[in-house]
Structures are given as structure tokens and as C-alpha cells.
């Protein structure tokens, strides 16, 4: 373990290596997210992720935001365990009828001011699951949505981009609240 930790001290951070063009994009984006987040919300924006019926593809990519390449916590953006601690609800999936109640309750358990980000194609309108007897529809059918990030699933870069857009839009609300 010491050897691994020691190596990590000397190895350049993975985020700064740019062997592929999208790594450059991540770095640019990361800087931008960092600036906007700090300007509007200090150093803290807490995200509560809610799977309202997704296939778990979106969860995989949201998880990836925590890996060393994206390292979302650099910007003070972090995932929290309770809606009570959250500023943002990040909701995935078509909302299934069996999850509708749980999603509503999670929304009401989140203190104001709060934003809802719907992630993935099915979170917009049910996507390929729309029309099923078991699906209520997109997230906005159940709780008010501030931003939608498309993709099946969206890549971590796209999710970061979406958060940036949210920070820009949420600014007036955040200062007035």
C-alpha cells in the first residue's frame, strides 16, 4: 500500500494528462464548473441522486463522476446520502408508477432552495419506456424539473456540462433565496 501511495505522490494527476481530445474538454469544463459553483454557491453544492426507475446505465455514468478523471468533489460538488442535505436532486429513469410516491416524498424532504436535474433520455418523457402501464412518464410529470441532461446514458462530461448550465441559470434564484 505504501508503494502505491508513494507512486501516487509522484505520478501526475490523471485529470491533467490529455492523451485524448475529450480529456481537454473535461479539464476546460471542470475549470468552468469550479468558477461558477464558487461564485454562486460558495464551495458547496450537494447532490442527492434518485433512481426513479432507470435501467442503471445513468447510475454507472454518474458514479464515474467520482473517479479520478472527473473527480467532481474538486469543485465542491458532492453526492450526499440524504435529501435533507441536498441542494440538487439528480433524477434518472422514466418515473415508474411504483417509484412515483418515493420520488415525491424525496422532493418534499429536500429543503429550499432546490433544483431538480433530470438525467437521461427516459427522464425527459419516458423515452423508450413511454406508454407502458407501469410508467408515469418523464420526471417533470411528477416534480418540477429545472434542467434536463439528454443521453442514453449521458457521458460524465455531459453531466458536468449540465451542472454548469444549471449553475448559470440558478444564479438569480440562489441570490434571491
Amino acid at each position, binding site marked *: 500500500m505504501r508503494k502505491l501511495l508513494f507512486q501516487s505522490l509522484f505520478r501526475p494527476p490523471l485529470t491533467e494528462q490529455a492523451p485524448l481530445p475529450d480529456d481537454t474538454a473535461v479539464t476546460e469544463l471542470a475549470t468552468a464548473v469550479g468558477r461558477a459553483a464558487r461564485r454562486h454557491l460558495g464551495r458547496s453544492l450537494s447532490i442527492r441522486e434518485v433512481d426513479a426507475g432507470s*435501467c442503471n446505465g445513468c447510475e454507472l455514468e454518474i458514479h464515474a463522476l467520482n473517479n479520478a478523471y472527473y473527480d467532481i468533489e474538486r469543485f465542491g460538488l458532492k453526492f450526499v446520502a440524504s435529501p435533507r442535505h441536498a441542494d440538487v436532486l439528480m433524477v434518472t429513469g422514466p418515473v415508474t408508477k411504483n417509484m412515483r410516491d418515493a420520488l415525491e416524498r424525496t422532493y418534499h424532504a429536500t429543503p429550499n432552495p432546490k433544483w431538480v436535474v433530470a438525467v437521461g433520455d427516459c427522464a425527459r418523457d419516458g423515452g423508450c*419506456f413511454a406508454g407502458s402501464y407501469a410508467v408515469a412518464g418523464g420526471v417533470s410529470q411528477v416534480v418540477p424539473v429545472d434542467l434536463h441532461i439528454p443521453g442514453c446514458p449521458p457521458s460524465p462530461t455531459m453531466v458536468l456540462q449540465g451542472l454548469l448550465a444549471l449553475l448559470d441559470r440558478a444564479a438569480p434564484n440562489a441570490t434571491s433565496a
Partner: protein
Amino acid sequence: MPSLIDLMLEGRSVQQHSPWPRVAVDASVWTFAASELAQGRWSLLGLWGELSTVHMAIMDGHTAEIATVSLDCPDHSYPSVGKHHPPALRLERAIFDLFGLSAEGSTDSRPWLDHNNWGVRFPLGDRIDALSQSSPYRFLPAEGDSLHQIAVGPVHAGIIEPGHFRFTASGETVVRLEERLGYTHKGIEGLMIGASVERAAQLAGRVSGDSTVAYAFAFSRAAEAALQLVVPDRAIWLRALLAEFERLANHLGDIGAICNDASFALMQAHCGVLRESVLRASNAAFGHRLMRDIVVPGGVTHDLNGDGTAIIRAALANIRRRFPALVELYDNTASLQDRTVDTGVLKPTLARQYAAGGYVGRASGRSFDARRTLAYPPYDSLHFEVPVLTEGDVNARVWIRVREVEQSLSLIDQILDRLPEGSIGTRVAHRPEPREGMAIVEGFRGDVLIWLRLQDGRVERCHLRDPSWFQWPLLEAAIEGNIVADFPLCNKSFNCSYSGQDL
């Protein structure tokens, strides 16, 4: 001892079902099959319904023979299999919720997928109005002095799927865990009915996002079996490449995540980097990080990009350079071993009874791996080992994954070395008459079974059985006697799919 073949002779064989036979049987043969399952002579592979028929897929573990028996139930009931063979219980509850066919004599008639939110009952059978008021779900009792209950979910603390866990604990120790699932039920089998084969393939790839390749692979193989399609060699080999890449990414992620649930974040950080390297290589080589919608009936939609081979080889070399140090770290960290060794033990008898697939089965002595036992192409001409352990604890499930990472690396090398030239797909010619097909494909989590009936380019009925159906109930058994705080660790070591079983 009767063989599956004998059972087949008892019934009326259904034409145009491939590759394994399906026979219509009467109630006595059905019950006989259930009792043979209970005796442990055969394994239950699947149990699913139709408007007024139930089907049961069975495997003879010794000969790897597979057969499906079907029972007509015009009066909407059939003799319960679960009464004899508990692994069938949840499947029977799901059949009742979706089709209204009741399992006569079942020991558990509570709803499973139906939480009385759909506005309709028996959505795939003869629909009736929903109950005006739902009665509270009765959890199984646990009796004793100073027991307390802990209710968890459906919304969990982490970035994971929704489900409800009801713990009954005595102090720190779990006396009983009962799962209640169905929250992510999207009605996929309902959406399949009448869908075009193309749309159905897309839906199949969205049953469980982490197994999108395995599901698309299984669906395509089932459709091709039904339509008697011959897939070009290059497509067959590319499918295996995609499947192994998916396994690699998931296992690397899991190994890190299990250690993280034992509060050893260093492994998570390093395994996360390796996982990301696989996803980036997938994106560069195939145009999608999770390789979604690439396997389709007839072949694959995407060939390796120009420098795809080089990118994949570079990713493999990187993993080979870094992974051994992580394995050593796992093995040599006493505080981590203290959490994983002897934790969440699944007994081999239970793994065998439930025909548990994947690392859950293989860590508890069940050697089944569809790639080896059923040897579908191209695995029949590839060299690999199927690691098996008997300890059945969290540690064993980690080690199975470690060994399978190594096997997948070797398989990908072999595939790249021998990748045939040629076309990557064939046109799907539809048939006007109904034709049925079945396929079993080894996903990273275990064997995915898909059965379907096609007619004129449309799906009449498609059933998708996730390996989790036979793993979730075992988690309840494995956690017993462990402390509540070890539940996340045990749960992650099983890593069952919620969406895959909820459908």
C-alpha cells in the same frame, strides 16, 4: 433416474422452437418436473407466463441438456412449482401479478411486482380494474425477545437503484432480511408485445444498463435461433469482444466498490481509474462507452474503428501493468481481509438449489458458466478457465471477479488475434409463421435467459430472465447472522440488478 429426454417424450413437442425443445405437457408431468427440481436432479432456469400458458425452462446439470415444458391453464391456475422448489416462488408471484395465473398450492401468494399503483391488474393477461384500496404488504414475521426492525429504501443512501430492505435485528445481528422489490418495474415485457424486432432489441438492451451487451447478445441469439439466421463470423467474434469488455469494466468497478464498502477507498480509486480506461477504450473503438445498441439481430452495427485494435490493446496493457499491484494490495491488507473473509457466507447447497449463476454461484462451488457449459460460439473455440471457489464469502466473490478479469484479458487477446475478416451483419429475413427461439448468454453477473416468439417481424411474446432472480433470495440467506453494518458489503459483493429483476 429419468432424463430430460424422457420427460420430453411425455409431451407434445412444439414445432419451430430452437435450439432446445419445448413440449406441451399435462399437469401430472408438470408436477413431476417440479418434484425433480426439488430433488436437485435438475436446475430451474426460468418460469414465465403467457395469456393462459405457463412455461418452465429446465436444465440437467450433468448433461447440459435444456428443455422447456409448457402447461395450458385455461382456468388460470396451474400446480405450484414453488411449493416443491422455493426458487420458483418469486417467479410465480410475478406471473400472477402480470398475467393473473395463480400457482395452486403456493406457500406465498403475496404480490411481488404489483404495488397497486398501475391502475390495472394483470396488465399482460385479462385486465381488470385495480383494487380500490391496497392492503399493506405483509412482511414475514420474526419472533423473539428484543428484536427490532430497520426499514431501508426504496431510496437508498448511495447512487444505486431503488428497493426496500426490511431487517429484523437482535442488537447488531441480522436475524432476518426480507427484500421487497418491483420499484423499477417498467413493464418491459408488455412493451415488447407487438414491437418490431429492432425496437425489441433496443428494449432488451435497456433491461439492465450494466449488462446491455449481454442482453442485446441474448436477444439477438434468441431471434436468430427463431428465424434460423446465420450470422457472419466476424460479427460473432466482435460480440464476444464486446461481451468480455463489458465483463472487464463491471468486474473492475465491482472489486473497487466492494472494498469501498469496507471503507478501503484506495482500491476504489484505483479500480475506478481502470474501469474508466475500459469505458474510454469502448467509446473510442465502438462509439459508445457502455457499447449500447451495437449487438443487433443479424450481427453488430459497428465494426472496430480504424485504430480500435490498437486502443484496446493499449487498454489491456495498462490493466496488466496496474492490476496485479491492486490484487496484491487486496490480499495483503489485513484490515480489509478482516471485513471480507467469512462475511456473508452463501452455502454451496443453496447456490446449487437456486442454480445461482455468475460469481455468486462460482464462489459457492457451482461451476456453471454458460460460455463453457453451453459453449456458444465463439467460446467453443476460445481457451479460458472457469474459476470456482467453495468458501462462498465476500472474499470468494472478490477472488472470482479477480480471476475472471484475468480470463477476460486473455480472451480479448485471443479474439483480437483471430478476428475473422468479412461482413458484420446479415439481413434479418422475417417469417410469416410464428417461430420461437431461446438463448442463454453469460453476462458479467451470470446467465441471462431470453425466450421469444416472433411472427412477421413482430414480437408476440418475449421473456427476459435476469440472473438476479436466483441471486436476490440468496442474499437474504447470506446476510443472516452478520451485523447490519456488513450489509452494504454483502450486497455489493452480490451486486444483483434491481432493474433486471423488476423488468
